């Protein structure tokens, strides 16, 4: 399958390893990964903060970058960006766009997937040949869980990873407190939520807390680093991309 990879602005700029892992994993599974260079940002931060006029060019840019019919599916290592493309781009296009943009947005939204959705629903695989001999706990991010309804797809993928010691996270479906600009506008409340999440993660004794969103992991990992926790964060794609021959080396930094 010819798959268009959307790196997301956060992944492209700050967390490229998760995007590299996505590209490596899909290539290893026999697919052609293309990276339309015109891509930038989905505009989720703008929309969630209340700005819908400003991201119109970003919405258009995304639809243009991935509109090529030769791209059979669009994947991104982020539940919240996939949620923005599928749920918010049509709202913005409806309000501020012209008919052509609405059509373009709808066409791209229909073939857009978060990583675990693409693997399980579209490519039909749960065993991806990964090897990751560590204790891991999984945090389902809010938008993947409640906007995209990925359900247990990430866990089904993780259960098939060789050598993994997968432990359940107490209170897993509670928000970690990130919420984009919420973490800045309501920093104290966000921190209170983060502390409860860190306590639950630490209680599992996991080496790694994984999730499908680099943004939530940036928040959780930043908190774990601050309290000098031995648990570090790692994007789901990196666990699935790790193999016996090319393992993911756990580095010192926790963020």
């Amino acid at each position, binding site marked *: 399958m010819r798959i268009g990879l959307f790196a997301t602005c956060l992944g492209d700029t700050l967390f490229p390893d998760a995007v590299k892992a996505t590209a490596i994993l899909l290539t290893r599974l026999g697919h052609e990964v293309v990276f339309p*260079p015109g891509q930038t940002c989905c505009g989720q931060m703008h929309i969630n903060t209340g700005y819908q006029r400003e991201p119109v060019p970003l919405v258009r840019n995304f639809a243009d970058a991935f509109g090529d019919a030769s791209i059979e599916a669009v994947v991104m290592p982020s539940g919240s960006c996939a949620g923005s493309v599928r749920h918010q781009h049509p709202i913005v296009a409806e309000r501020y766009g012209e008919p052509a943009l609405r059509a373009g947005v709808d066409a791209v939204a229909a073939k857009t997937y978060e990583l675990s959705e693409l693997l399980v629903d579209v490519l039909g695989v749960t065993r991806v040949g990964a090897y990751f001999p560590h204790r891991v706990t999984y945090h389902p991010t809010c938008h993947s869980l409640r906007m995209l309804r990925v359900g247990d797809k990430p866990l089904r993928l993780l259960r098939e990873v060789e050598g993994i010691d997968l432990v359940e996270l107490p209170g897993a479906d509670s928000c970690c407190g990130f919420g984009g600009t919420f973490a800045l506008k309501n920093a104290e*409340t966000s921190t209170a939520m983060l502390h409860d999440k860190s306590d639950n993660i630490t209680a599992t004794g996991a080496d790694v807390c994984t999730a499908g969103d680099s943004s939530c992991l940036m928040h959780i990992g930043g908190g774990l*680093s601050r309290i000098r926790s031995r648990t570090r964060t790692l994007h789901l794609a990196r666990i699935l991309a790790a193999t016996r021959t090319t393992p993911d080396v756990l580095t010192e930094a926790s963020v």
Partner: protein
Amino acid sequence: MSTFLGMPAPPPRSPYGTGNLRGDRAFPRAARDELGNDQLRRNLGRATGTIRAKRLNVTGELPDWEALRDAGSAIKTDAMNRLPELLEQLERRVTERGGTVHWARDAAEANTIVARLVRATGSDEVIKVKSMATQETGLNEYLESVGITPYETDLAELIVQLADDKPSHILVPAIHRNRDEIRQIFLDRIPGVDPELDNVPAHLAAAARSYLREKFLTTKVAVSGANFGIAETGTLAVVESEGNGRMCLTLPNTLITVMGIEKVLPRYQDLEVFFQLLPRSSTGERMNPYTSLWTGVTPGDGPQHFHLVLLDNGRTAALADVIGRAALNCIRCSACLNVCPVYERTGGHAYGSTYPGPIGAVLTPQLAGMHAAKDDPNSSLPYASSLCGACFDACPVKIDIPSLLVELRHQHTEQTGLTPEKLAMKAAAAVMRRPSLYAAAQKASALGRVVAGRDGTISRLPPPLSGWSDSRDTAAPPRETFRSWFASEEGRATLRAAATDPNSEQKGEETA
């Protein structure tokens, strides 16, 4: 010759509501104080945790729960779409059955009407059933100011009233109080209470009961709210747990019910849906202990004078918003409060309104507006959410609260002038719309590496990012962006190697 008619003007918007629908400071400021109260955090964490588990049990056991939610949503949406005709039908039916209907534009008008009706009976006191509408209008304070004493008869409302406090939860108004605090409030404020009163819940309830019993038997006027009003029959409904409502609705000679106009339902049989949705969502019970239904006046049985005060107070203004009006579908079950990670930590007072939590964050700004003045506290409410979506999943009438929050944020930025935030958002969008500028900005961000410590993390950032760095480290930006890696020889070589990785032999193993 032609006549210039001018630009079409938007229709005038109905006035916003008044009363207890606005705090005195923005949510983040108020939340900061509440977050510092460890006792409050513990009380709330325990209470919401318990009720969450109960709700999941009793909603999970119904095979048609999702169909019930759809039905509830459809009935409420239909009612909102023909609110004028349903309200007039309700008025006709109530009048035919011997009741009197009053229309109140806002909180002040509702309070005046109630006070006038109470005075007409010659009584200077009223007993009250727990009611959100009269909390919203500030009825108790108004009645006191004109020499009428209101007695709250719901246990939690009584605790709040005796303590000169404010409710912090729609269903459990004293959720922020524990039993020791309640014992002290009773000792201080209930006349003639046993000075040996301990903190055993049953003993506390007994103390309240003996205090209230006398009020039930001697007070001639009761004031209630209504959970539902049926247009078809003129029937009003109150559901409750303690039986105090039943006492108020049957014993006094005069009953005055204050009902928000959005509480009207078209048909009597619609109650079938809501009597299942409401208790399971609110208290986590299959059925509430007391369900009271009454229609007008029945000679020789129950109150002989019945008044229904229909309260607008901003509801027509909310109805004018084609997206935001979905918040009017709320049946005040408070399930969204109990699952909200923000409410769980800040409590209800931080919202500054009668309606706290996720539904309050979308309802309050619509009822009372959010641009009454610069930095209106109500404009901070739509941002009091991480948009986690737990409220939408819990809502028995499927109000998409996260989408409403995003919509209200949009309305807020549209009505606010140029702010530093808006400038930053415009600048970010201007950069991100051009891939070449974007790539240059990415390179600039890599300069952040120089401020990182030796462990590769940044532990202090300047405002407005300092709130972030107060409790989170930030990884230094990487040397190389994904796009430059993908275009590099190293990137291409890595992907070539991946295509022939021996582990890729497993790629044929499909999901069983």
